[in-house]
């Protein structure tokens, strides 16, 4: 993995909301085919960093995607490179599941879900199959449970087939089964060649699935490295103010937050 050229490079990225600096001096370079967990306490600037990487908030510094400055890309081109999964994944109208997933093809020029070209249709079908939504595809989104809606939101993001997937707490409010399932799907997307960046509060899932962990505190990047390094006891104590159980299972690190310190 370290031999691949980095796809996403950030140089001294900062974001100020009014006079408050919510993100400062973040530099990183990340390769495709990897799952990156972005962790940090509440208010550390995780969502802001995700938005800055996707070009959704005005930011200082530069973000490069595949060697090109993101700020210089057209809105559509940027949308083809970054698939963004926000928190909460609200859908305001009771649209059919298939139409919601097809919105992922909007950046590719497929503006009407009922008239998709063969390539767009194939991408939608792949996303629906990957998220196991075939039986629900013609239902209205409002008829689904929270876990099913999370899968639809993920399918919509997968349908973009973008080189970078940015997911903001995709497993929050899901039961353990769906947490593992959704994280597994993101992991599979990374294995298929995407760079997947996931904001999460679940350090256990980060340790279990991430190739790399970015630790953010007070708007600054404190550390980035493999889970064992980034989630070491002294980091958890200083950044998260917790003590954790550290172990291993199936050759994967296990981190279970244990007590507040």
């Amino acid at each position: 993995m370290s031999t691949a050229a980095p796809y996403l490079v950030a140089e001294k990225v900062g974001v100020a909301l009014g006079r408050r600096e919510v993100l400062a001096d973040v530099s990183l370079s990340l390769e495709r085919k990897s799952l990156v967990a972005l962790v940090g306490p509440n208010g550390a600037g995780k969502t802001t960093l995700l938005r800055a990487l996707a070009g959704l908030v005005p930011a200082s510094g530069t973000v490069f995607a595949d060697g090109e400055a993101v700020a210089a890309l057209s809105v559509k081109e940027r949308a083809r490179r970054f698939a963004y999964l926000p928190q909460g994944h609200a859908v305001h109208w009771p649209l059919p599941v298939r139409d919601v997933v097809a919105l992922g093809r909007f950046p590719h020029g497929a503006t009407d879900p009922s008239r998709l070209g063969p390539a767009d249709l194939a991408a939608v079908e792949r996303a629906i199959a990957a998220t196991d939504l075939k039986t629900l595809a013609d239902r209205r989104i409002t008829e689904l449970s929270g876990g099913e809606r999370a899968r639809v939101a993920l399918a919509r993001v997968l349908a973009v087939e973008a080189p970078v997937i940015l997911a903001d707490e995709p497993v929050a409010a899901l039961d353990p089964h769906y947490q593992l399932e959704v994280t597994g799907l993101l992991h599979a997307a990374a294995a298929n060649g995407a760079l997947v960046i996931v904001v999460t509060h679940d350090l256990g899932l980060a340790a279990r699935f991430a190739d790399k962990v970015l630790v953010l505190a007070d708007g600054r990047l404190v550390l980035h490295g493999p889970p064992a390094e980034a989630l070491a006891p002294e980091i958890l104590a200083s950044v998260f103010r917790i003590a954790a159980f550290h172990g291993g299972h199936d050759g994967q690190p296990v981190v279970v937050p244990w007590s507040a310190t």
Partner: protein
Amino acid sequence: MKADGRTRAKTFGAAAALGTGGPTLALTAVVLVLFVGSLAIGPVKLSPLAVAEALAGQGSETARIIVQEIRLPRAILSVAIGGVLGLSGAALQGLLRNPLASPALFGAPQAAAFGAVLAISLGLVNVLSFALPIAAILGAFLSVFVLLAVAGRNANLLLLILAGLALSSLAGAGTSLAMNLAPNPFAVLEISFWLLGSLEDRSFRHVALALPFIVVGATLLMAQRQKFRVLALGEETAQSLGVDVERLRLLVVVGVALGVGGAVAVAGTIGFIGLVAPHLMRPLVGWDPAKLMVPSALAGAGLLTAADIAVRLIPAATDVKVGVLTAIIGVPFFLWLIVRERRALGGGVS
């Protein structure tokens, strides 16, 4: 499963080529019938055959004058104005992701009326100049623009309605002031009747005055329709999918202002068509905000034309104004909507 998907896409593609298929065709037929009805019904009743003859330049001279010069402009205006009001309602509901949004609730017609009345009372324009729709359009644009600016980016409905209430009160007060200061009482009477909303005694001069603005506004709104579907995912996600939300908002405001301003300039304030039309269409064509646009326009056209026929049939000493009729029907409908959506609204408003 893949083959299923393709067949489905094909049948839906065919349906999409006809708008939303069956309902759209049926609605078009209804609007056509009402259009002919509007040419046939009035103090002098004409048969559809007589109407057709008169349109073709045949038949008696009286019938020709009644149909071509008195009723035809009125029918064209009712279809165009009803249509653009329905379209504006559907577009605003799509933009704001809220089924209770409509131009009238946001004070757009009132502000357009204020723009027009101000221009008249300042003596800047006469009632038949092109400056009148422009003044009305400016009024409507300003009100919707200020509304969205005041209510903020992720405004909930409570904020929007409060801001709309404030703006329509302000526009109403401004209109009253302009009438207070008007030089002669007949002008005041004329303005107040015009404010009630009517299509009576409109000529092709009025059609020429309003139609270009209405057509441009409607075209602008129609061109945005696919983006309303993306907006169902919220503004940030829509942005991430390549929709320039700021630009979309501006285009919708301009489109609504052109349509509503053009309509108000010749017909006064006609409310509630924009609110009612999309609601009537949802059970027929579904909730997809993009697919709702054409049916809403047709429903608006049908509603206003039907209302305009109804005011000719209601026995009264003086004519009932069509704007009064749409409000009398529209307000209870709005209250019923509030009751029906009370639970969802409680969540959205808090």
